[in-house]
């Protein structure tokens, strides 16, 4: 058949009409829309049976009880655990986002060894024998004390296990990162007696005088504190906030006492002076205290209300009125530790606030301060120490605090090996450049980190730790709570990667070291160890998930020793030059210290805190000069120069620049790192004589348009 143009056209048109009328088009249209509803790259979560498991969150020292919802054993949601003695069903955003940490892009998936500038994967066996070998060499050379340890929290069985290892190895060089807990312990040691801690019974106080403590922004046990604040209205409790900016806590307070940054201690001492001069209670409560006369004389001389006004900017009459309001309340309590109470604190300030509590007769009273005994539920068998261990452990520590250690290491070195557990000093300590330089002076660094954070990046070997959702551990409350609760953190999921419980790692390491060290670590596993050392409470702990050790005021009034305060200690901060004082600002939605924020947490951060790649600094419009809201500006301190965005904010004292803490991470997690600047980079440590604390709460700064 000959196909001419006409029949070709006809055929074509006919075919087109036929297809158009057939169901093909309709079917394709429908299919394509169904395809858009099931795009292969849109995940379809597997369904199954819903169950709930209890555990404890150990992201921060809060020690909240959590309930983990699972689908076919797969955790899908974390919520606060109802009726838990610490958080009673509440939760904070970091804990709720906990599951994100399991799959965090920066998680360390296997043991690693540094080779040049790169990490290479190694097996656990290799890793353990490598570390054991290095440590063995150090021991053989007769300098076991040159092994150091920097860790986070100083309580619970893991802390003790590490300490036990250090003892058995023969080194006294264990250091903890600055935390509210360690600052309170230091205060208790200076004013009362060693091995105690302080707990603030905010729940039962009717007059809370907070010296900048961010009670609802992460101070202490955050959820417990937020709940204590929330119930204030019903129990008619007042909150007076001493602050230089409108923190959320200041905003929630009934009254704000505006002070110049860094003069909180002076105000506290001024209040002490008023109380001593005007009230009988204060004089009476001094009976039996150590160095009370010298203290009284010092107050009388140095802290008249006029002098306090000159230092703090609080009017003399207001100082007196505040002191009287405090003493007249039924159950007042003074709370130290500005912000989260960790970095940039001085013993002077903590002690001054605690002295106020002592003078007001608030020690070991309901609604006051508890001078608490250690939790004491752990009973480790006696350690096995050979001669090398005895010798090394008997030597003097290199430094009194981690900040002093950094100082010492940077100058002259002194450690041949360093364990880092639960700590990120290369981010969390002031002047991170100096910390990194100090780290470079240590020959062999072993990190027990779960994430490739700033410090892990500097280590030589990483023995990756399972995170709290993957492990068993006792978590003991502290952090300024007026009760002691031990919770049991339980594995909610098998380790997602090739990681180990750091307790197990330590036991393996000890056993690989052999001899006396192995003898002291003869457990099969950390689980066996925990069961043994918590013997008395293990059953309750594993059945109920927690044990309340103590929730009543300790009996008797402890003696207060005013020796430290009587010397009228002074520290010269902030350092440097500039028209402004730069201070870090703790935000509830950003993790501070060694903890890293989750993608969800960063997502909630306001654009008045983080804008694109810039940290936004708070500055009062009155002192901003020509700088406008949203301008990019250059911020300069003695430690460094950075670009920031200006956030005009009526809620900050003139002359002060507030910079959010918790930004400026530099590791490999695009959701969390590479955003803003780390305020710690800009602030230099100022070591407080007598305590070794880094008292640099801020630094002088200049600001100019970029």
């Amino acid at each position, binding site marked *: 058949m000959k196909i001419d143009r006409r029949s070709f056209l006809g055929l074509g048109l006919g075919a087109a009409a036929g297809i158009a009328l057939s169901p093909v088009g309709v079917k394709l249209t429908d299919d394509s*829309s169904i*395809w858009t509803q099931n795009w292969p790259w849109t995940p379809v979560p597997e369904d199954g049976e819903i169950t709930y498991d209890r555990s404890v969150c150990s992201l921060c020292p809060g020690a909240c009880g959590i309930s983990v919802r699972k689908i076919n054993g797969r955790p899908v949601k974390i919520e606060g655990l109802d009726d838990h003695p610490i958080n009673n069903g509440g939760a904070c955003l970091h804990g709720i986002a906990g599951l994100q940490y399991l799959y965090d892009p920066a998680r360390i998936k296997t043991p690693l060894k540094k080779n040049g500038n790169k990490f290479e994967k190694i097996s656990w066996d290799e890793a353990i024998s490598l570390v054991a070998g290095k440590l063995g060499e150090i021991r053989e050379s007769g300098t076991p004390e040159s092994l150091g340890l920097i860790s986070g929290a100083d309580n619970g069985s893991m802390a003790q296990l590490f300490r036990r290892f250090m003892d058995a190895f023969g080194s006294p060089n264990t250091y903890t990162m600055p935390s509210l807990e360690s600052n309170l312990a230091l205060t208790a040691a200076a004013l009362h007696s060693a091995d105690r801690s302080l707990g603030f019974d905010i729940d039962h106080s009717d007059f809370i005088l907070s010296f900048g403590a961010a009670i609802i922004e992460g101070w202490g046990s955050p959820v417990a504190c937020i709940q204590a604040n929330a119930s204030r209205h019903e129990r008619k409790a007042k909150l007076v906030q001493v602050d230089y900016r409108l923190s959320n806590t200041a905003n929630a307070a009934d009254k704000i006492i505006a002070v110049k940054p860094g003069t909180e201690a002076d105000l506290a001492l001024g209040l002490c002076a008023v109380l001593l001069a005007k009230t009988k209670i204060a004089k009476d409560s001094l009976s039996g205290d150590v160095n009370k006369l010298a203290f009284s004389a010092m107050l009388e001389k140095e802290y008249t209300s006029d002098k306090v006004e000159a230092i703090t900017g609080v009017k003399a009459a207001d100082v007196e009125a505040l002191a009287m309001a405090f003493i007249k309340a039924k159950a007042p309590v003074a709370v130290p530790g500005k912000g989260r109470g960790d970095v940039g604190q001085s013993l002077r300030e903590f002690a001054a606030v605690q002295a106020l509590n002592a003078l007001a007769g608030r020690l070991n009273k309901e609604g006051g301060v508890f001078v608490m005994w250690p939790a004491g539920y752990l009973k480790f068998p006696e350690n096995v120490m050979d001669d090398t261990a005895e010798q090394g452990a008997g030597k003097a520590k290199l430094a009194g605090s981690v900040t002093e250690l950094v100082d010492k290491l940077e100058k002259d070195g002194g450690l041949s090996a360093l364990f880092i557990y639960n700590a990120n000093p290369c981010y969390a300590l002031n002047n991170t450049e100096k910390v990194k330089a100090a780290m470079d002076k240590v020959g062999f660094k072993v990190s027990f980190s779960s994430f490739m954070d700033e410090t892990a990046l500097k280590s030589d070997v990483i023995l990756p730790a399972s995170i709290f959702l993957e492990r068993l551990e006792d978590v003991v409350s502290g952090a300024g709570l007026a009760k002691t609760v031990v919770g049991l953190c339980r594995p909610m999921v098998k380790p997602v990667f090739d990681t180990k419980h750091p307790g197990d790692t330590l036991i393996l390491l000890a056993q690989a070291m052999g001899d006396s060290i192995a003898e002291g670590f003869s457990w099969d596993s950390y689980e066996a160890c925990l069961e043994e050392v918590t013997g008395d409470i293990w059953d309750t702990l594993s059945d109920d998930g927690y044990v309340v050790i103590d929730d009543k005021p300790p009996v008797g009034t402890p003696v207060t020793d005013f020796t430290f305060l009587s010397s009228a200690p002074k520290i010269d901060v902030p350092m440097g030059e500039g028209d402004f004082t730069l201070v870090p600002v703790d935000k509830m939605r950003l993790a501070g210290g060694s903890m890293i924020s989750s993608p969800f947490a960063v997502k909630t951060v306001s654009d008045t805190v983080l804008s694109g790649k810039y940290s936004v600094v708070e500055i009062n419009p009155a002192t901003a000069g020509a700088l406008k809201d949203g301008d990019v500006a250059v911020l300069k301190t003695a430690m460094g120069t950075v670009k920031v965005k200006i956030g005009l904010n009526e809620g900050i004292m003139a002359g002060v620049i507030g910079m959010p803490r918790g930004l400026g991470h530099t590791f490999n997690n695009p959701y969390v790192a590479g955003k803003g600047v780390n305020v710690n980079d800009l602030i230099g440590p100022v070591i407080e004589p007598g305590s070794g604390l880094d008292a640099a709460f801020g630094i002088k700064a200049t600001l100019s348009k970029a």
Partner: protein
Amino acid sequence: MDDALIPEGAKRCAFPIFMIGIIIVGAVLLWGVYAMFLCWFKGLNQTNMNDYYGFALWIWADLAVIAVGGGAFFTGLLKYIFKVDDLKNIINFAVIIGFICYSSALLILAIDIGQPLRGWFIFWHANVHSMLTEVAFCLSCYFAVLTIEFIPNILENRQVNKVPFFHHLAHNMHGVMAVFAATGAFLSFFHQGSLGGVAGVMFGRPFAYREGLLIWPWTFFLFTWSAAAFGPCFTLLVTKITEMITGKKLVGDKTVNLLAKISGWMITTYIIAKIIDTIYWAFVTAPSMGFKLGHFYSNNGFYGYWILITEVILCGVVPGLLLINKSTRENPATRTIAIILGVIGVCLNRWVMVLQIMAVPVLSFDTWALYIPSWQEVATTILPVAYGIILIAVAYRYLPVFPQELELNESADTAAQN
């Protein structure tokens, strides 16, 4: 080269020159097509729209082309229903412009929606309460009508018309065109109105919200009215531009003046209604929701009272008066100014009713939201313009669009030949 396709007796530029023009405009078109594919394959993150600015540049373009495309339905209505016979000289062109506008509008909608493959859900899962459903139905139907109206003109191409079937088809279609014109006018009335309704029913947005009649907010009627009023301005403007480019007179002054006069009266009556609406809204509706007029025109870097004054007075009252006044209407310069102002006016109205609505804060603690379109948005918005130019160029070259072309240019041609 393509002489055989060119209407008999018509003078057209040389094919290579024509092709150069097409290639230049075609490059712009391709740029738009590239942006369009980016939006389809990568998603609307290619735009600078955001959750505050869910409607943006191209939705304004969409509403604007539909408004100016209103010349087609209104001219059709006048020509076929009201038998204003003089309009036969411009009706073909009005239909082509309408066809371009409406096909562009549909294309923009296909790019605008987040899930283009589910676009048909608007018909399948139609929500009768939604103004947008009405828009979609009427818009699609009216586009079909415009296509039908356009077909006879295509069939009149010299070669196509040689086929007896097409010749008769074209002839018969002309015969029944009144039916389609009526249908088109009806559909157009509703979808122009429902586009106005889209804004007017948003009772959560005091800047947009209007009271009204039964289920229709006043913007429903104002949009239809303004499309009918300003649509012919656009038809005249495009005619003028085409005349300038071709260097020929294409539509007789009588027809032009007639359409301009009708447009003038429509604009004038519309703008009176618009002013009443604005006053009622400014002094009754908005205050009842807690807003004073100044709220909508202050505290931001762009939207000031200037936009209201420009839209209503400069681009509403002024062109209306210029076109109803015989002397200014018949003066080509003032007439052209009026036409241009009119087109700007209706486009500005659609801008305000799309973009300013999104920009105005409603919550007392919210702030103005201004946005700058991305290049992809600009390219996809220019795409219909390029497409329109090409379609007009091709239609003008190969179809007998302007019945008066030969007659109006005869003398000039003869003069040239002599």
